[in-house]
């Protein structure tokens, strides 16, 4: 009988994104059943210790040259072969650009239902897994059940806690026996676009600016606060549309959906589409000169005032606190 969870993870040169460990910890918590980690690419073996540390009972490495460059159809076919070997009850994928591309393809091939971007996966009273996922970008939450024999979940980053288990994962050798020349869609190049910028969906603190910042060069004021806090930068949609900041900053229903511990909304009015994308934040801090701005209704803390005076003062206070700590 199918049992256990297959956690499908991407890695680069042995480095696994934190969401990989979050998924393993979650899978381990949902025992009984073996937790198997599957990872691809050059250097995959180097992730063995860290995968075991966070909850993998066994690991499958597809590190041959066929898997050095991502192919949605090739990798999906390979995952299906591993599923045949491991026979898991469920599969986890990260709800990242990589996982969201691969998970539905695998689900389709397996004839398994997929719940995307889950914030919760739990064991139900009937022994099966169930999940909670945001819909309407977080304006509501759906508790879902998947009725197919095997189930696929993609897991939103930055929600699940990680727990170290210190196990030594066994290596399971599975060769999907695929011929890479049959892979159709192939990645031929990767362009790094942001350099040092922290990824918004994984950020613990976000400083986000809106039209209240008034001009592209004024984002320096926010950058200074972000650097004092060790935060990532984000924005409302109009300022990204204007080209004041890169498109990748855009947060909201039609941009990124974020779930940091603290979200600073600076010069952002709090339109419903923006609020949708930040509702998963633990704390929302609003800085706005208009006391009636809707953002204050969504916030935990707020300052009514001119951002050009408040933000530099706040950056200074944060530096004081960090110095004393």
């Amino acid at each position, binding site marked *: 009988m199918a049992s256990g969870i297959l956690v499908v993870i991407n890695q680069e040169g042995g480095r696994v994104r934190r969401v990989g460990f979050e998924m393993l910890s979650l899978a381990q918590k949902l025992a009984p059943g073996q937790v198997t980690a599957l990872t691809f690419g050059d250097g995959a073996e180097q992730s063995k210790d860290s995968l075991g540390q966070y909850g993998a009972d066994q690991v499958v490495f597809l590190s041959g040259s066929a898997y050095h460059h991502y192919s949605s159809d090739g990798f999906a076919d390979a995952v299906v072969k591993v599923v045949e070997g491991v026979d898991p009850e469920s599969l986890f994928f990260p709800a990242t650009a990589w996982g969201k591309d691969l998970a539905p393809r695998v689900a389709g091939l397996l004839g398994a239902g997929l719940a995307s971007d889950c914030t919760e996966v739990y064991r139900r009273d009937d022994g099966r897994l169930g999940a909670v996922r945001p819909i309407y*970008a977080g304006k509501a939450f759906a508790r879902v059940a998947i009725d197919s024999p095997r189930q696929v979940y993609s897991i939103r980053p930055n929600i699940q806690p990680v727990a170290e288990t210190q196990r030594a994962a066994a290596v399971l050798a599975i060769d999907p026996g695929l011929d890479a020349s049959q892979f159709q869609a192939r990645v031929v190049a990767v362009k790094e676009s942001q350099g040092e910028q922290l990824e918004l969906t994984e950020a613990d603190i976000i400083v986000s600016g809106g039209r209240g910042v008034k001009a592209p060069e004024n984002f320096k004021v926010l950058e200074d606060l972000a650097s004092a*806090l060790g935060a990532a930068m984000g924005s409302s949609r109009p300022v990204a549309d204007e080209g004041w900041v890169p498109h990748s900053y855009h947060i909201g229903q*039609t941009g990124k959906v974020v779930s940091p511990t603290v979200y600073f909304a600076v010069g952002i009015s709090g339109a419903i589409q923006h609020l949708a994308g930040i509702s998963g934040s633990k704390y929302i801090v609003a800085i706005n000169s208009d006391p009636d701005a809707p953002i204050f209704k969504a916030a935990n803390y707020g300052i009514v005032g001119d951002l050009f005076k408040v933000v530099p003062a706040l950056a200074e206070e944060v530096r004081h606190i960090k110095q004393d700590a």
Partner: protein
Amino acid sequence: MKILVLVKQVPDTATKIRLNPGDTAIQTDGIKWVINPYDEFAIEECLRLKEKAGGEVVVLSLGPSRVEEAIRQALAMGADRAIHVMTDAVIDSQVAARALAKVAQEEGYDLIVTGKQAVDDDQAQVGALVAVELGLPQVTVVIELNVDVESRRIRAERELEGASEIVELPMPAVITAQRGLNEPRYPTLPNIMKAKKKEVKSVPLDSLGVDTTPWVRVEELTLPPERPAAKILTGEPEEAAKELARLLHEEAKVI
């Protein structure tokens, strides 16, 4: 070149979500329905491809009768004709994909374009599922698309976290459109008039012979928990900033 574009009708993004206790679907009375924002990028890209390479753009949409409004709008943007898979049933992504793929198969295609995600259920699945149903390669979350009609090769840029990647693949294929791919056009008045006369073929879901049992079933909907009333600070900026920093440090313990 024959291009199919998948268009879903969704509640306007300004919609405030309301629930009746016990319901597994949102209250829909008074909702303004629109084309899924990402599908507008998909439609625009198809129109541009047609303008370059010639051929036809066919809209495929699945949903109840109200969906015709979204279809007419897509036609007003410039699509040639449409197929409306009609159903009032509660379905999931797999059912939608099976049905849309069946229609696509009967229709024939060189390229299928969808939005990267429908902003109601946020599943981001249908494009890839249609690709699997039809045995096609895919590239999702596309921000730049180059189609070489001669060699039938596609080169696309797709968005990653803090990076992007270039994917090459053969035609036919499924492409899912992300914001940034293009700037969708507004329908002009003459085109709105023309759209009224364009063909919209209605096909009942049940006539397609696909399994319509959903696998992913919503058991309960809830609204996000209310945040406690905010602590709002006013007064001198320096004082307010100092107090905020103290609250974040000592009360919330987050900095």
